[in-house]
């Protein structure tokens, strides 16, 4: 435990990082976040009407990343995502459904949108979800958890990986249902966030993220976070 204590006592840089979720409806965007944040999964989850703004800390050996996770709140359904959504997003999760080829086409669309609208330095992870519905857990060493012995995979690991490589994206296949690889996605993103963002030492929430050396106004003055939470890695 001594290493844990040492990590806890040494002040690690903490950075707030905005993460946006993108992907076709029903690919499991909210479920992934739900799994990440509270290690929970809900069958037959209703379409996103909640999940607007979650925060979750991710502690790495040398720094703490505080994810501020924005869900689409359904505004993507009729192509009505606001520019506010992309703005200042340092990271994005573009999600598709391994059992639904059209969702990968949609994922390409979102990657293009991010390149056009978001910061050029944005870290994007391409995530093929619903690995539990695929019998041959390709690539990531996952064994099948499909109940009905039927492999419903329609998008090969290779196809996803190739696209990710072309676009310079992180790539994972996950199951929000079983939790397979979910934490790895967020850890990989956290590790890939450029150092300069960490060094900015932005405060809580959205404040100070815009940079340019000028202060934003904190409208809800809060007491500063009392104790840095220790890393238990």
């Amino acid at each position, binding site marked *: 435990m001594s290493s844990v204590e040492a990590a806890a006592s040494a002040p690690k840089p903490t950075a707030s990082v905005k993460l946006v979720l993108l992907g076709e409806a029903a690919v499991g965007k909210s479920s992934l976040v739900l799994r990440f944040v509270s290690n929970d999964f809900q069958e037959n989850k*209703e379409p996103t*009407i909640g999940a607007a703004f979650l925060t979750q800390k991710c502690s790495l050996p040398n720094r703490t990343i505080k994810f501020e996770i924005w869900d689409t709140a359904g505004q993507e359904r*009729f192509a009505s995502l606001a520019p506010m959504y992309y703005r200042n997003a340092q990271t994005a999760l573009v999600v598709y459904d391994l059992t639904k080829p059209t969702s990968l086409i949609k994922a390409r669309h979102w990657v293009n949108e991010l390149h056009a609208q978001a910061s050029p330095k944005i870290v994007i992870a391409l995530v093929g979800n619903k690995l539990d519905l695929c019998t041959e857990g390709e690539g990531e060493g996952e064994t099948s958890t499909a109940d009905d012995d039927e492999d419903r995979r329609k998008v090969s690991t290779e196809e996803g990986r190739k696209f990710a490589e072309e676009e310079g994206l992180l790539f994972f296949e996950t199951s929000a249902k079983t939790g397979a690889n979910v934490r790895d996605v967020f850890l990989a993103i956290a590790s890939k966030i450029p150092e300069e963002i960490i060094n900015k030492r932005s405060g809580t929430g959205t404040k100070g993220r815009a940079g340019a050396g*000028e202060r934003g106004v904190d409208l809800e003055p809060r007491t500063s976070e009392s104790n840095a939470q220790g890393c238990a890695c």
Partner: protein
Amino acid sequence: MASASSSKVPAASPNTPPDSCDVLVYGTGLVESIVAAALAWQGTNVLHLDPNPFYGGLWASLNLEELKAWTDKINSPATNDTPFSNAYLYISRNLDPRKYAIDISPHVLFTRADLLNLLIQSRVSRYLEFKPLGSFHTFEQDSFEKVPGTKEDIFTSQNLTLLTKRSLMRFMKFVVIWDETPDVWLEYKGKPISLFLKEKFNLDEPQIVELVHSIALLSSPSSPTELALDRIKRYLSSMQVYGNFPAMYSMYGSGGEIAQGFCRSAAVAGAVYRLGTKLSSFDDESGVAVLDNGEKIKVTEKLITSYGLLPSSREITRMVAVVEKDCKEWFAEGESAAIVVFPPETLDGNKYAVQALVLGSGSGQVPLGQAVWYLSTQESGEQGRKDLFLALEKMEESILRESTEDFEFDVSEEDIAYLPNGMPVVSSVRLGESLRNFTPKESLKYLLKLTYTQKVTVPPPQPGSKTIYVPAPSIDIVYDGVVTRAQAIYEGVTGTTEDFFEVDFEDEDDDATATGNPPDTSIGDVADIDDEELGDHPDFDEEVAGEMTI
């Protein structure tokens, strides 16, 4: 769990548009968006449309591509549902259209304002970033004077006589309690504020001008006394709420950006969003709305619309200029914004004040090294345009003079005053004693110029109708009246304002609280999250899983 959601999820699959709704909101301007969010949180089934492919309606902030399309549209004789018209647009070549966000109805937010309270209460403020605005300049006798907005400013000002200082101090003492001391002003109710200040407080013209036009941000010296007092008090009480500035602005655009935040809040509460969708017709009797693609939507309660030809009382004139100068000379330290006011009779006989909001690149509206100037006046037609162009010219002269490198700013002994603690301070910045003696060596490069007019619309009362009209943004550079209007519309739908945004953000943050975090640093606006299993991951500090119920 899911109490907020169960009734609001559209019955059809998520990709199929709903074919009915309680309330159809048409237009994503600020007022309608507040109403949409308030209704959605109250449990009303809201469908929110906008004919434009962007959010913000008549309050939008547009990139340059959108701005071009917008000017074409409002100039087209076929367009008859917008209060804007008569646009002249120049855009310099080789600008990156996406690096700009041009406000078509720019506004600033005082730190004491009902809208700010609502933003915090609704948590929409968390989607936005606000920047300080502490510089208010008045144009007088060919120079810009920084407005003495605090007692310290007055105390240290070298431009004021002792007698004037005393009168000003007396007035400032009164104005913070003006509403409790009607005996002082009641006889001036409805009468010009300038008369009141002169007769009751012996204030001189320059101080009256600053108080009325730069501090109260009113357009005419004959504005009613009680309105002006209210706004002067608001300015003073807004100082020091968040710092040494009375006002703020939202980054990347004003009302349109705030509207986006409310739309997002509405979506979180279950409202359905469709941009780029026109309403072809609405039958007030049956409540059937027909969209431009032929879809029919049954509206059971109300149509709330900000589009349509409304009766208008008068026209106002607006101008936008993007300049290749950072304009930091006008900003306070660490800020990126200023207001410059040209009072009446300072621009070749202008009847109304011209207000200019100057935003630098820190606003996120223009790239580094540039600034955007928003000018407006209540004057209409050719005279309005003339006033704005004259004001533009003065601003150009001033910024060239201020930013000329070899220009030396002489600080003589008389310009230095001392605070009670002995700290020397240079008196109010004299932005050029006389511009007339200055011949600029360079010219100012305009990257964009836009002028247009706007009708001030007055929605007719529509008793018994299913349709509620939302008026266009006012000329006022402050958001006054927006929340009141939204509440009135809300009342028109629900019959009460009692539960207006009465959202109980029930945060289940036991875990976070137990670890000593202040509860509100870790609030997630999320529904349908169960946080019983917190703490299972070795890799993560579980912090947040909030539940929002209504």
